[in-house]
């Protein structure tokens, strides 16, 4: 069986936070306690959207030690493939859904003398759980959170209210910017920096920290890539002896699953490496979008991550 263990849940609250973000609360259908987790973990939510099964990862934002419910926050992406729109438009209180056990690809380094969190927009969610976790043990942390405007600053007020000395909010529309270089320069030895937000922000934090000579081991980031739409293409699966079509709005992994192929996965966002697949033959070009394979592997034509990467060309034969 692919993916993490599954949990049957019902939606017990749907709370719109602002024009873009809605929060969902899940409780176990049978009333049992949910597993505890570590801050930074995500769950994969299964959505039955017409004939399509969508599996989207969302960071768990609730207190990891609260086993009565999980909460996630979903930002509506009008240009996306439809997962967030499904959550916003279709999911109602009382609905039953299937979610995965928590999986953590963005965990705290518990050796850190200090945890420095840098969030952009909806990237705040994993930090909410991490802050809960650290607060249980009087952990040393500091948050710098950049959002578009006060109206769109999800959880900014709550954070500022509960942790006024540790929370720093920056609003784009008021021309407020994180003074990153200065911030990184002043950190004591043993600090770890964590960033979650848009790709541009992650790249900015990584490159600034590297320029400030931070060790790579002290820089952590979580970037879930949503699969991007693209031109349809055809794939031959050598082991199951099937030829399948990958549609414009589905990923290669989703197309394989639709055809009944049990392909391994965890994050579905190009990060964890579980779905790595061997290419047997190809004629054409890969559109690699993962950050699991390195540049040499991308260039080799020997491997592909079907959760986010695509193909354009005549033939593609995979070891599935």
């Amino acid at each position, binding site marked *: 069986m692919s993916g*993490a*263990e599954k949990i049957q849940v019902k939606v017990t609250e749907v709370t719109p936070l602002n024009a873009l973000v809605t929060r969902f609360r899940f409780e176990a259908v049978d009333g049992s306690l949910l597993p505890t987790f570590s801050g*930074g973990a995500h769950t994969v939510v299964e959505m039955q959207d017409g004939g399509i099964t969508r599996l989207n990862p969302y960071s768990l934002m609730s207190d990891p030690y609260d086993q009565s419910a999980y909460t996630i926050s979903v930002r509506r992406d009008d240009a996306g493939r439809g997962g967030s729109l499904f959550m916003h438009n279709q999911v109602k209180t009382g609905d039953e859904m299937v979610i995965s056990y*928590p999986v953590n690809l963005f965990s705290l380094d518990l050796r850190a003398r200090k945890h420095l969190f840098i969030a952009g927009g909806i990237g705040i969610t994993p930090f909410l759980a991490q802050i809960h976790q650290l607060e249980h043990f009087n952990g040393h942390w500091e948050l710098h959170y950049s959002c578009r405007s006060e109206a769109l600053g999800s959880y900014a007020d709550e954070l500022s209210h509960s942790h006024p000395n540790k929370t720093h909010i920056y609003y784009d529309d008021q021309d407020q910017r994180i003074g990153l270089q200065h911030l990184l320069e002043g950190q004591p030895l043993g600090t770890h920096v964590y960033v979650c937000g848009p790709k541009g922000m992650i790249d900015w934090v990584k490159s600034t920290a590297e320029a400030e000579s931070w060790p790579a*081991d002290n820089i952590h980031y979580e970037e879930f890539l949503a699969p991007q739409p693209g031109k349809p293409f055809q794939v031959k699966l050598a082991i199951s002896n099937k030829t399948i079509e990958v549609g414009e709005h589905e990923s290669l992994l989703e197309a394989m699953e639709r055809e009944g192929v049990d392909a391994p996965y965890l994050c579905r966002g190009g990060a964890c490496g579980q779905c790595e697949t061997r290419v047997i033959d190809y004629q054409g070009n890969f559109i690699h979008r993962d950050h699991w394979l390195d540049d040499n592997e991308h260039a080799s034509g020997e491997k592909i991550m079907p959760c986010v990467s695509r193909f354009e060309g005549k033939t593609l034969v995979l070891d599935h």
Partner: protein
Amino acid sequence: MTIQFNDESFRGDYTFRNSDWAIQRFPFPFHEDSYMYSVNMEQHRGGPKGSVYEQRFDVDEHYVSEMKDRALVLDQDPLRCQSLPHMTLAGWDLLELIMVSKSEDYPDLFELNRDGNRWRWVNKPLRIDHTFTFLDETTLPYGPMEYITRQAQGDFAILDQRDDMLWMDAGMVTTQADWSLDFDIGMNFFEWHAPVPKAHEMGIFVRALKFLLNIQQGAPARRLNWTMTVNPLLDTSPENYHKWGIQKTELTPENIGRKQHLRVELQTFFRLPRSNALVFPIRCYLCAFEDLMTVPKWGRRLHRVIRDLPDELATYKGFIDNRPLMLDYLSKFDDGLPTSLGIWPDRETEPPLQK
């Protein structure tokens, strides 16, 4: 089920014995007539009724005596149990995992009552009845990992997961196959396996690491490993090797059946939820050659495996000097008949010894 606990020793007069029940359920580690390294992982979700695979943490007739032996080792050398400062949360994770598993799997032996963070733990075999506050170290007599692993058979290594690597940052190690926690604590997966011959070149550890990094909550895994020990000595530590090493030279054709033991480790792997660490329980089972030989299939197979094992492995496992003596003994139990696949004894279907 009710287990009759043995009163026995793993040192000095070595009164350790396996009952017929324990021999029948011994985790014989060879699924075919030869042995080479492999990752050989499988899901740890139960197994045949009564087997060592059935429960998450197997409890058997040696439980009480093994815990007494552990306490003795720790009295002499507290360094056998260590936890780097950032591993306390993982220790609580382990305490929770073991208490919940044992109270569910052996309700006649263990009870756990939870009222919020107020927990009452009853361990009947060890006569413990203790109320404490979960996640509050001041309410336990030891750190959480030490507290619970003084009540659980087998060694425990707790591995922190960082930067796509596992780091052995905590452990309780008193029944080990000749490795030192005090020396290895803080090492990464490749470093603490560094002394193992051949397996690095075979890519075993790269594959094993990839598998282990992806073990998820609620989906534990397991494998078997093995070595040889003269006398039923649990504490074959490097720390005490200057004392026990000499016992390896005391084998004779007359005493080998009784003294030589096959030592099997049931290794399991669980993702720990609160810390995202991985716990690696290493449960040691000992069985004397003469007891193994009561199962005809195991007699045939053990002879063939030991005979054909590469010298490097026999050296690493520390029995190269005793191998000729072992083979003289074991060959008497090998009549050349074929054996059935798999590790189980298959007493009903395998023929008795034909010589």
